């Protein structure tokens, strides 16, 4: 089953029209995803990872954005496709779990209504069939006493519960590709681990492909097959997960990892913050976008922008002076900050 090419993104550019000129949010991103695989997209706030995931879904407002390149799902071009065509794919082929479970559920609709709605529209289920399916979905995502929760309003559920409901809604029509855009934002660490494990388990059960967008390298370390690191709208490093943690080449990836707390360290260890701010995307710096903040930056970095080159099988990075192999990369983070 595994191995069939599901998603192909080629040279995707997204820019927003602003009053100060075009803002280049995504600058030439290419990626591929096979069925049953998980891709992690990592980067700090403003690196373009959410815009990238929404552009793949086709959810960006058309009027104020320019999108070029190509996004193909099983050979069908999605980019700039009319909404009517995307609507046929949404929910039955591609579904999305949104960032904030507190705002992603309609506050005045009962949970049951919100889960059964896509079932009734897309799968043409009857009312009773839809309810049965919804209850079994609620059970699958680990919601206790689903019959009662079915009648509840979102305000009556906790954040973790709501995110489980969001996942249940996204999975309702059995999509083949699940986009999870920071699915654990605003949840505490224990619940984060539970939600991520749940996503992983459901993905294995359903042989579903998943794109996991996050700012936390620790989250993607054990849960993905491949990782893309984004900075200022560019892919700066791309590698299979185990390769990335074994031999990361891009200083930005290393900096991201160093800024993540690790459970093995003694308490009160200072975290290494990345100096400076993410670049202004209206006025991107010349040369490598990370050069103003890069501790290893040399003159060449400030002038010429490094291309994304494939150094070894599957491992590509955009850096003139990659971290060498004899300089050991920091150890991979613990799989889970807290046992699930």
């Amino acid at each position, binding site marked *: 089953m595994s191995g069939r090419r599901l998603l192909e993104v080629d040279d995707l550019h997204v820019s927003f029209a602003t009053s100060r000129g075009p803002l280049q949010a995504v600058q030439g991103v290419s990626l591929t995803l096979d069925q049953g695989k998980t891709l992690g997209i990592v980067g700090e706030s403003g690196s373009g990872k959410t815009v990238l995931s929404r552009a793949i879904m086709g959810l960006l407002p058309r009027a104020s954005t320019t999108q070029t390149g190509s996004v193909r799902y099983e050979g069908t071009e999605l980019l700039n496709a009319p909404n009517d065509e995307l*609507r046929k794919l949404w929910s039955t082929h591609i579904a999305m779990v*949104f960032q904030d479970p507190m705002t992603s559920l309609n506050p005045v609709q009962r949970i049951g209504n919100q889960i059964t709605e896509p079932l009734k529209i897309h799968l043409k289920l009857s009312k009773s069939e839809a309810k049965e399916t919804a209850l079994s979905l609620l059970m699958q995502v680990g919601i206790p006493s689903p019959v009662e929760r079915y009648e509840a309003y979102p*305000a009556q559920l906790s954040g973790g519960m709501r995110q489980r409901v969001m996942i249940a809604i996204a999975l309702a029509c059995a999509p083949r590709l699940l986009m999870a855009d920071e699915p654990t934002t605003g949840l505490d660490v224990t619940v984060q681990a539970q939600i991520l494990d749940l996503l992983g388990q459901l993905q294995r059960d359903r042989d579903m492909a998943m794109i996991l967008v996050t700012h936390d390298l620790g989250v993607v370390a054990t849960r993905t097959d491949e990782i893309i690191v984004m900075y200022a709208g560019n892919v700066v490093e791309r590698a299979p997960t185990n390769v990335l943690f074994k031999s990361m080449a891009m200083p930005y990836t290393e900096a991201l990892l160093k800024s993540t707390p690790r459970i093995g360290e003694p308490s009160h260890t200072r975290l290494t913050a990345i100096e400076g701010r993410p670049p202004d995307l209206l006025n991107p710096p010349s040369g490598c976008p990370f050069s103003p903040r890069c501790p290893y930056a040399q003159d060449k970095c400030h002038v010429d922008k490094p291309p994304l080159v494939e150094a070894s099988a599957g491992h590509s990075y955009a850096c003139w002076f990659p971290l060498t192999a004899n300089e050991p990369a920091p150890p991979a983070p613990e799989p889970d900050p807290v046992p699930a």
Partner: protein
Amino acid sequence: MSSVSLTNPTHEAFADIKDEIEAEEAADPTKKKLGFLFWLCIGWIILVALAATFANLLPLPNPNLGNYNSVQNAGPGWGHLLGTDDLYRDIFSRLVYGARVSIVVGFGGAIIGLVVGGIPAMISAYRRGRIDTALNTGSYIVLAFPAIVAVIAIVSFWGKSLFKITLIIGLFAAPLIFRVVRASTLSYATRDFVLAAKALGASDTRILSREILPNIMPTIVSFGLIAVATIVVLEGSLAFLGLSVPPPTPSWGNMLNEGSTLLTGAKGQTNPWLVIFPAGAMFLLLISLNVVADKLRAYFDVSEIKL
């Protein structure tokens, strides 16, 4: 022996708390109460509406013909429940028939305003773009014009029938309703759950009717009722100026107009009842509409549900 006297009351206290908790659990937490005042106000609105609708069937004297066997400008009494005016007409009968004008113009005007203003507002706020900008600017322009002056001008040109007055007032209420509905739609149109619904393949019609409309319903209902109240007052002002339905058809406004001449004794007679009753009826209708609007807003607000 002291331990016995100490434990007994404690047990009782625990039993009390347990009972209380069970009683609270038995009550549905999603249920909210509207309160006695709400039902009193709803009762008054329904009473006025029913009386206006079935005025013909009620055992009332003709509101437009005087009973010349009775006393002119009589106070409340048995023959005429609320007394008579200076043309020997029954005030109670005129009050009931006059309610027709207030109810029809008030609710009719608000419904016209909601349809003409509210539906375009939702679509325009959801779609945005140039049409939205144009409609928005248009609503500002219409609002900048004093409505009562415009209504007076149109009424004096076009004529004064119940239908025309309702239509004109409804159309002038539309831009105000447009603004309110547009603003509340805007605040929901960019919420995550709307995007989430879109990502699940919901059509625009579905998003507007199932995702956004239920959220702005409290605003629409309460603002709609307040619009009814405002329109009743506006009709009253027009009638007071003699620009609403022409006499002898009674309306609360023209009754007030007729009564005002009898208030000062300018005609040699005084009859304060002719002012007190229509003013009182209107006051009670307006306060009822406002209370109902306020209570319904709180009732529809599910985010205030007790956890």
